[in-house]
């Protein structure tokens, strides 16, 4: 909101004039939410006129006199509530009786100010109202944003689960109809593909569980001294078979201290994801190099491959949920699209970060930094 739209409702021209003088070139400063707003002022000389104006335009704030010629301020408030207008009201009362104040507040006024008031008192009242209004709006925007992100995630997830299921159903239906005759051999490819798609679904569900665990923070993170070098050796062991089948050589090098106070499960997830990607997206007879570099501050893990690589545009999208680079080169490579997004979330838990450097058809280098102080601070009672 660049400007606070204010409607002044008072039947005394003198009062409207002095409010105008106090507010028209005034900037409301709200340091608590790092925000400054100007004021755009409009006037109405009666409650009836105010309601007419409100039919046409919307306002953020109404300065509403209680004692008006026709309708009273409280009458106007009742009308506003009936119309469900999203506008904040400050009542102006000549005689600040408790009774009027209570009635006004019950009818939905945010605050009241009693005549006579100084320009500074008015400005302070407006500032409080503006601050409340803006904070309320920000909170609403945040809730809306969260809801939208969650909805998008579930929508994409639904799609990602439906496609493999659909593929498997199609194959099963064909086999049920004995579409290729009664020889089992004729169905070999359908069976192999069905199993591959089921495997992909299983991996997606496993990744989802990893992700939920990290995001929800439900599982207690268990900090112990983990030797990242040993964890890397285990991860290498895990991808050994697919790597050997395609003649991909994996090497591990390290300098400096490689131990880190951390959650062992998280470190395993990071290394397994990076290594399995480095093998999956590599070329036959390629190479994978894992380098660990430790110092007093952090441990840096780099995983370099000689694979298909990425364009800059692709690299920018890589760490988002369900981001899978779809092109002819990746078509037959299975993946959930969640692995790197999980790696990034874990790196952030260690106040570190992830980055990628890549050249198409040359290879990619992923760098993950995990800070020591992040985990050691949290593990202290």
């Amino acid at each position, binding site marked *: 909101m660049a400007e606070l739209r204010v409607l002044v409702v008072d039947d005394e021209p003198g009062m409207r004039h002095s409010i105008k003088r106090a507010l028209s070139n005034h900037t409301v400063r709200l340091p608590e939410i790092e925000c400054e707003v100007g004021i755009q002022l409009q006037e109405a000389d009666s409650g009836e006129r105010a309601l007419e104006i409100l039919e046409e335009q919307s306002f953020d704030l109404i300065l509403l006199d209680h004692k008006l010629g026709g309708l009273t301020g409280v009458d106007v408030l009742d009308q506003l509530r009936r119309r469900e207008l999203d506008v904040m009201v400050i009542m102006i009362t000549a005689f600040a009786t408790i009774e009027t104040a209570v009635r006004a507040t019950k009818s939905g006024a945010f605050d009241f100010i009693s005549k006579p008031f100084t320009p500074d008192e008015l400005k302070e009242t407006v500032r409080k109202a503006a601050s409340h209004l803006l904070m309320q709006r920000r909170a609403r925007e945040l809730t809306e944003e969260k809801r939208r992100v969650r909805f998008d995630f579930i*929508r994409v997830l639904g*799609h990602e689960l439906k496609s493999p299921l*659909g593929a498997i159903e*199609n194959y099963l239906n*064909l086999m049920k109809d004995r579409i290729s005759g009664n020889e089992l051999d004729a169905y070999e490819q*359908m069976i192999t593909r069905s199993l591959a798609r089921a495997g992909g679904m299983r991996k997606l569900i496993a990744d989802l569980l990893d992700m939920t665990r990290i995001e929800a923070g439900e599982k207690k993170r268990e900090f112990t001294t983990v030797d990242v070098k040993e964890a890397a050796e285990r991860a290498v062991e895990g991808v050994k078979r697919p790597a050997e089948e395609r003649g991909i050589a994996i090497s591990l090098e390290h300098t400096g201290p490689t131990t880190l106070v951390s959650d062992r499960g998280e470190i395993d997830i990071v290394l397994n994801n990076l290594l399995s990607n480095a093998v999956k997206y590599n070329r036959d007879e390629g190479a994978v190099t894992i380098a660990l570099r430790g110092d007093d501050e952090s441990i840096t893990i780099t995983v370099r491959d000689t694979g298909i690589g990425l364009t800059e545009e692709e690299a920018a999208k890589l760490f988002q949920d369900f981001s899978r680079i*779809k092109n*002819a080169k990746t078509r037959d490579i299975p993946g959930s699209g969640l692995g790197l997004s999980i790696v990034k979330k874990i790196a952030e838990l260690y106040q570190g970060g992830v980055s990628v450097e890549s050249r198409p058809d040359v290879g990619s280098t992923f760098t993950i930094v995990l800070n020591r102080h992040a985990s050691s601070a949290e593990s202290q009672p």
Partner: protein
Amino acid sequence: MNKCILLVDDDPDFLLSTQTMLSSAGYAVTTAEGVADAEEKLTRHRPDAAIIDLMMEEFDGGFSLCHHIKKLDPSIPVIMVTAVTSETGLNFDVSTGGDRSWIKADALLAKPVRFEQLKRELDRLLKE
């Protein structure tokens, strides 16, 4: 002569299963794995009908391919298949208007496609 179907989808499993089904039903099938691939195949051979996935590498890849085919020959029936009709908010019955009006597909089927239904639609459209 067998009727020839152009089948376009970026999901290789959809291609394989649908091709198997259509072949056994007596159709000749050409498959393409994307819009570019399909357009290239169209320059060499004109199919009797096309089955296209709506969402391929580009958001509206299926739409632009449908447009391309109808421009080439409006009499070629096009069946769109999609897993995400309800979520995209795209309406097939109404052209979006403006300068660019989409030529609509002849039929829309939800994924996973029931083969019986696909065969029925094909038979109907090829008879017309």
